[in-house]
């Protein structure tokens, strides 16, 4: 008699094996857009403190707090915003981006709770930790030659990186499109970190840690100790995943198909990118898109639901036969349409949050016979 196969053991072995392999990507996630927080390399809520000769290539800001101690010894190649309108707006946009990141659906197998990020290769998509996340070695983000690939790592509590740990990019991954949504983050000394940390509370960088990306804290403190932080490669645009990578080539000199050298071991991101910030010109993207669809289901008699889907939609004004029937400024951009029998034209005027030109979408609608009245039966008692 053949020996039965223990499927559970096989499955566990397979799962364990796969944990060292690339984790699959899910469907394209929503774009995280930092908005006016993009120029900031460091942003804090109550305070941003510094110790030693930190180098910041990018804006520095704090809001609603006003405390910026220790920056006499630091070099800031950017503008400092101490609780001004710019910093306040950046905080607002950071909150919006944080919420978008938090809402990203996880990839299949994207729940990495209790696992160490070290040794993993993450493909585009979202990954999550219900509590703390640990990076004790090197984690690789692989864009699979998609320059628009977006990565979101959602950490329920604290992200901690060990001393000398590193974030490595492969196959065109862009650090500007990596988002670490955390409660708090603590980067160990000499960590070579890449990506944007969006922290609910605070961020601490230990001695010598370097960052290509941004350290953005909403409510608490961001503290630096002899760190090098650089977001110059991310600043020329707001860098939604649909946009062109800044500078035309993937940041960090990453060549598609070739994994990058860990920043901590090769060309350090802190020492290799000390050029002063480029002259800043605000480039408004044109990534808006919209389609108008009639939602299936429901009979003609009950009308139908017209919905506009797309990206960067600011407002949709629905009209039927030239008469305005509804205006929507937030999702879902939808309206129930019910017209009398006959032909009708439903139009949706769509405006976008970016520089995309407004467009008018049209949808023909013909009420079928079931939309007509159905009189009840009754007696004939008329004069005739």
């Amino acid at each position, binding site marked *: 008699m053949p020996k039965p196969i223990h499927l559970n053991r096989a499955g566990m072995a397979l799962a364990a094996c796969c944990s060292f392999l690339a984790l699959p990507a899910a469907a394209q996630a929503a774009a995280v857009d930092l908005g006016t927080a993009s120029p900031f390399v460091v942003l804090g809520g109550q305070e941003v403190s510094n110790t030693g000769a930190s180098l910041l290539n990018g804006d520095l800001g704090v809001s609603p707090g006003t405390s910026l101690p220790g920056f006499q010894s630091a070099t800031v190649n950017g503008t400092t915003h101490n609780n001004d309108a710019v910093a306040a707006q950046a905080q607002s946009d950071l909150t919006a981006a944080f919420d978008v990141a938090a809402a990203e659906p996880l990839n299949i197998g994207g729940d990495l709770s209790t696992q160490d990020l070290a040794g993993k290769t993450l493909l585009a998509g979202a990954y999550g930790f219900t509590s703390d996340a640990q990076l004790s070695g090197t984690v690789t983000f692989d864009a699979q030659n998609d320059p628009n690939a977006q990565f979101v790592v959602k950490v329920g509590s604290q992200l901690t990186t060990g001393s000398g740990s590193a974030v490595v990019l492969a196959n065109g991954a862009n650090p500007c499109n990596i988002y670490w949504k955390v409660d708090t983050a603590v980067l160990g000394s000499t960590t070579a970190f890449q990506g944007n940390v969006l922290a609910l509370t605070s961020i601490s960088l230990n001695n010598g840690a370097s960052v290509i990306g941004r350290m953005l804290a909403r409510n608490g403190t961001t503290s630096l100790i002899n760190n090098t932080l650089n977001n110059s490669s991310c600043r020329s645009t707001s860098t939604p995943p649909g946009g062109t990578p800044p500078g035309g080539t993937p940041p960090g000199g990453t060549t598609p198909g070739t994994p990058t050298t860990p920043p901590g071991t090769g060309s350090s991101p802190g020492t290799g990118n000390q050029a002063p910030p480029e002259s800043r010109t605000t480039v408004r993207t044109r990534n808006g898109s919209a389609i108008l669809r009639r939602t299936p289901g429901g009979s003609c008699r009950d009308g139908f639901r017209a919905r506009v889907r797309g990206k960067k939609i600011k407002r949709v004004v629905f009209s039927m036969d030239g008469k305005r029937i509804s205006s929507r400024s937030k999702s879902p951009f939808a309206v129930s349409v019910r017209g*009398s*029998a006959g032909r009708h034209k439903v139009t949706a005027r769509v405006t976008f949050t970016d520089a995309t030109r407004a467009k008018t979408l049209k949808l023909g609608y013909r009420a079928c*016979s079931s939309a*007509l*009245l159905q*009189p*009840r*039966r*009754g*007696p*004939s*008692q*008329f*004069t*005739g």
Partner: protein
Amino acid sequence: MSHRTTPTPRLPGLRRGVAGVALLTAGAVCALATPAQATGSRVAASQPLVALLDGHVARTGPSAGSRRIEYVKALRPLTHVRTFLPVLGYATSNAGNRWAHVRLPGRPSGHTGWIPAKRTRRASTAWHIAIRLSTRRVTVYHRGRVKRHFSAVVGKPSTPTPRGRFFVEEALQLSSRDAGGPFALATSARSAVLQEFEGGPGQIALHGIDNLSGAPGTAASHGCVRLTTGAITWLVRRVGAGVPLTIRR
């Protein structure tokens, strides 16, 4: 007792006041008018209605002390659909109660009254039917524009179709054995000659020609307006309770 009256909506086809009276009484003048002049250019795009959520006592004025006219049921007697009445205006009594001036069904044909606005629901219709007896022609308006013309059989001289402003009380489907099928629009108008007919109150309707004689464009009915099957079918699919009806010479 004083009260505030909201503007009365403009009613189709007729000038109000002296001009309206003149138009109704000066038959010779009206007979010279073209159908377009008589029915075409002044039909309101929308007619306000009220739906009765309960039965209401209609009175001669907008106050509880005004003389009682009749009791209007919340449901129509033939098909038991909700009662819809055209609204001519609103008023607020000294007691602060809001009243609606409405057209009422039944006799005398085309009479109006006031009902409390409480336990009613506002509605409106974009449809309007106008009938010109001299040309035996039915014109249907939607949003103030002509949608269809139909030729019809109207009342013969001995049992004429009453003239005035009325409304559709209810739409109904008749059986194949009934005279006037397959559909009928029962109106608020009543025959001035026949006080009772076929067990009914002499009610005027727009209906079909099943089991009836008479060619469209003639005056041969007992007061009702007969339409071809295609015409009445088109009409009942679109026109429901409360739609105003104007019948002219």
